[in-house]
């Protein structure tokens, strides 16, 4: 449980609040909201690791909580969650449901016309406290990324997917990998973790 370091009834002077989006400084709400352990998706780690400055938007504010690779038969090939909270199951549900949106986006001929060669599918849907982004490779393998519910720049998401795609291509190019099977490569997992950690850190190169 998060330690309570602000007295529940102690006021915070109004000028400190002014002009700041409340969601950008969740730690200030902590005294009031004291979310239950379950209700902290980006959760514990984020709050614990970030200094309680509250004066500037945190660089690590957006966090990827889950990435997934989904195969041709809409079967999961790789799914890794990066939360400490125990909602792996919920993330499975979210990733699975997002396939409906991908189907809709890909199969809707009217909408796909200008985006014929576009692999990045954009925000699939916001749900509860997550946002789900999708990406479709030219071999119709789907990548899904679940982030915490904060503003994610399109460029960041695209950049992430590009790196992730490269990692995926390397993983499946392994001669010992059987196409269509789950990706069990440890080096792929390590590489994905690195990509996930570097997400949103501003390095768009």
């Amino acid at each position: 449980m998060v330690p309570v370091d602000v007295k529940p009834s102690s006021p915070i002077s109004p000028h400190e609040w002014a002009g700041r989006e409340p969601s950008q400084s969740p730690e200030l709400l902590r005294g009031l909201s004291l979310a239950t352990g379950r209700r902290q998706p980006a959760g514990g780690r984020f709050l614990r690791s970030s200094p309680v400055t509250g004066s500037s938007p945190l660089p690590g504010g957006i966090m990827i909580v889950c990435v997934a690779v989904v195969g041709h038969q809409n079967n999961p090939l790789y799914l890794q969650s990066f939360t400490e909270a125990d909602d792996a199951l919920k993330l499975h549900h979210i990733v699975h449901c997002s396939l409906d949106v991908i189907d809709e986006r890909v199969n809707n001929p009217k909408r796909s016309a200008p985006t014929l060669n576009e692999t990045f599918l954009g925000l699939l849907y916001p749900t509860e406290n997550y946002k789900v982004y999708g990406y479709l490779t030219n071999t119709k393998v789907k990548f899904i990324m679940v982030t915490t519910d904060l503003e994610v720049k399109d460029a960041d998401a695209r950049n992430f997917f590009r790196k992730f795609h490269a990692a995926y291509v390397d993983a499946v190019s392994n001669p010992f990998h059987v196409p269509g099977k789950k990706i069990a490569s440890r080096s792929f997992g390590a590489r994905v973790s690195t990509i996930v950690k570097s997400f949103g850190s501003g390095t768009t190169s």
Partner: protein
Amino acid sequence: MEDYPEELRTPPVSLVSIVGCPELHPSISAALSSQQPPMNTLALPDFAKASILARSGKPRDPLAPSQPPAGILKKDWLLKHRTRVPAAVAALFRADQVSGDPAQWLQACSDLENLKSAIQGKNTKLVVVLVQAQASDELSEDVTVALRKHAEIDSKHLVVLVEHDEAEWNRSLNKLKNVFVELCAAFYKEEGRRIKARIEKRNFASVELSIRYCFKVSIYAEFRRDWPEALKFYEEGVRVLREMIGTSTRLPPTQRLVEIKAVAEQFHFKISTLLLHAGKVVEAITWFRKHIRSYERVVGTPEVAFLHWEWFSRQFLVFGELIETTSTTIPDTLSPRFGTADNALTEWEFQPAYYYQLAATYLREKRYAIECSSSMANLTTEVNGVPESVMPSVYVGQYVRLFEQGDTVSVLPLSDTEYTSYALSEAERFQDSYEIIALFRKAYESFQSLGATRMASACSGGMAIEYYAAGDFSNAKQLFDSVAGLYRQEGWTTLLWENLGYLRECSMKLNSPKDFISYSLEMAALPLFSGSGAENRENKIKSGPAGSPTISRRENIQQEVINVLERKQSSEGTDDGFNNAMEEVTHLDIDQISPLRMVLTASVAFHDQSVKPGSPLLVSVSLLSHLPSPVVVDQLEVQFNQSDCNFVIHSTQEDSPPLDSNLRDQVVQDTSLTLFTNRWMRLTHEVKSGQSGKLECLSVKATIHKHLVICCHAESPASMEDFPLWKFENQVETLPTKDTALAFSGQKLIQVEEPDAQVDLVLNSAGPALVGELFTVPVTIESKGHAVHSGELKINLVDARGGGLLLSPREAEDSESHHVELLGVSTVSEDKESKEEADSIRKIQYSFGVVSVPTLSVGDSWSCKLEIKWHRAKSVMLYVSLGYSLGSSEEEALHRLNIHRSLQIEGQIPLLVSHQFLRPFRREPLLLSGIRSLGSDDKKCSLAMNESNMLIVTARNCTDVPLCLHSMTIQPDGDGEQLCSVPQISGISNGHAVVAPSEEYKGIFSVNPRAISTNFNLGEICLNWSRDSSLGEDQDRLIIMKEQLPEVSIEEPPLVVGMECPPYAILGIPFTIYVKIHNSTSLLQEIKYSLVDSQNFVFSGAHNHAAFILPKSEHIVSHKLVPLGSGSQQLPKITVTSVRYSAALTPSASAATVFVYPSEPKFNLETSHSTSDEIVS
């Protein structure tokens, strides 16, 4: 949305009040409310009631310091303004009340005074209405002026209503309406401006007031239908409100949060409604997102988290309902690239179902939170108890306690603890489950119709979990089952795991051990997602009753099944529920599409493709299980479609006594029948093939722990499919059999062949068949061990070179055109009965025949002859098949044996007939056609009329057998007999002539035409032949073979050159040859002739000469020759040339040959005759 008060849900409507003249009120109210925009009327029948318009509150002391407000919004403020605070008040007076009686005038004045004092201090406008009966009733000017002055109003606010004239009434009513509209606008504008001024000057003591002012300004703007301003101030209010969360200290934190959220909800509802009704969907959704983001973290202390989730869920529900009721559509102007920088929204945010689903999800959060809070609160409230008589206060989102002390009732604020226990006790009174289910169902149906099956499934799953939580296990099970199907299909094992965990619990609760076992086994056999988290968290709510999917959990589940089977007391007491329902033996049926295929799969392969009946054959039974722990199989029963072949394999570890002895199955002991995970257990067993036909392995029944029988449908290795969920796993793929060929091509069924027929079918053939003859093929059926019952012989003739039918395609219709024909089948047997029987089924067509065979006992034989006639030389395959059954009983009759024989028979042409025309010996008729038709291709033979032309017919035996030629004649065609006689010169002497293979027989005919004809048909050659019977075969049938002679042309020769020469000459003795030239024309013919020297002869006479021949006369040229050499000598060559026809005639070489004896020969006459014959032939 229905929970909101009416005044909040509908747009505010201006309110006016009318006082006095109650009889006119209904018509005036109706007229005002039918206006666009409508106007509500507060009708007061008389002036005594005007006091309710007065300010109800106590007058505030302007000098006292302003108290900080006790709340943000007063609950009844909006209602008050919609029902009790009119924008304008109209005082209605009858004209006679003010014009006549001074007492009445005074009364009117005091009424007006009261009214004025009631609305004093407010901006409420006053209107005076005078009601006249007729338009003509003039009111005196001074009365109106006095009234106006008294009321302190403009002249335009004094309206005269004319009661009894409809046109005037409407006109005056319209005027009143317009006055009201104007006054309302002014009133609300003024009110709004007044409050706005306070905001702008920041002339307020607390944040609460700021928010309240914003709300008021917005409401006044709404009264004026100034939507943009309303929106602006609502948004401003929300902003300030959001900032208040951290700053306000007026209330204890929990209640403060509750109040703020309640107010925010109203603000948000107003904003959403305004935006959606203005068609600004995108803005509304964006606003909603912002609203949600602002408040999603503001949960409050864990004890009251349920309040937050309830509130949060309501936000989604209300917004979903708003979207649904305004039936929003995605605007066309929106970029279709959802979810990108072009368009930050996503498709689903336009669907109410999306909001319902989230509302349900958050309501479920509330349920969890209540569960947590209740358990916590149970410890604390024991002491404090739930506070009594708590009620909502006058402020939105606040609660107070009524405190009675004697007669006085006072209102006391609540502490947070009190409030929490109150809220908890209130919340516990409601069953949220059914609301959650209803929301999920709404979302489910909507998503289903949108084609979002996965989302719909997630909703279904949500419903199921609620049913489960509510204890409705049968509904839950049904829903879980439907959802599990999708997860199985798409291989989402973690989701499936959760589902199965619930299903397992449901079936336990429903007292269904079979389902429990099958779900448990499926769970235990699920492939795990490698990325799933650690097991240390025991959070049953999040991952369902199944726990985390780990290998150890799988093993536990498998062990639980075993415990249930063995009726041990399991750790969770699982088998308590099954005490009654547990059957002696639980049967599970696994077919190829069953999800339990992962649990046990049986692959059965025969080692051969076909087998003789009764002979042993090897069959491989392989079992595969994905269960994590080894499975010990007590007994394995393999079942075939022929039950005689079934066999049972026992594990020797099993010390139970073998099964009852009357079981016919073969029982085998095997050392160990233990299945290890993902490793094939291969067993090879020898079975004895049963009856002929198909032998198929149907199922393999494995008995596990005595009480569980798993019946697997047998699968062929060749057509075995991948395991639905395991196919995505990285694991070693093993083959069901060691023999790889068998693993890829093995079949679970085998063809058992028919038993060997013990009957001989013999086809004899006497060499090649000859065209024209009735060729017989004897067929013998000889029983060598089998009695033949209801036998049937089928005969079929097929072209040996392929092509099937023995017909030329062009003449298929014509029955005559069969090249080879089956004419009949003659049975040798003389027995009448059998003949009749045979006749009963005897169908013979040109190339096909069916003949029934009489019943033969063992050792008997039967034969028949096939009569086949060849019309052309053709090679033919003769197929004969005998079908029979071993007995006459019905059962045996079904089982028929077949023997097939075939024989290739060549068809040959027996005799090759050729013919040749020859001219008369040493007579050369001049045939003009021979000269003329040099250029043409007409190969027609020309014959000279009235000359005896020779015809030699040659018949050559082409076969390998000697043939008898019985006669050779020329049969003239029709009337040719009169025109031409064809006597035979030489022929068959004594009955018949035998022609050996490849020998020839020649017949000589003389043709004497008697008429000129260019196309004369001589007739046909008729040969009568048979096989040579001298070889002992009794084929004495004569066969007639005919061949047409070609047409000839017959003409009369103009000149005939004949040569006379002695039959022989003697060396040194001169002889004379004559050349006779006969002119049969009626013209003088000039001829030239020449004689060429020959070294063997000396001759006298001219070498060249010419002569003229008179018509119908003969010219003779004679030469005397002396032969100089002996032997056959060529005479000097004589050439006769006809000048008229420019044709030369030279006797043929044979005609110009003479034999010269060295001396006078000595022989008798008879022999000389025969020699001459020989020479001729």
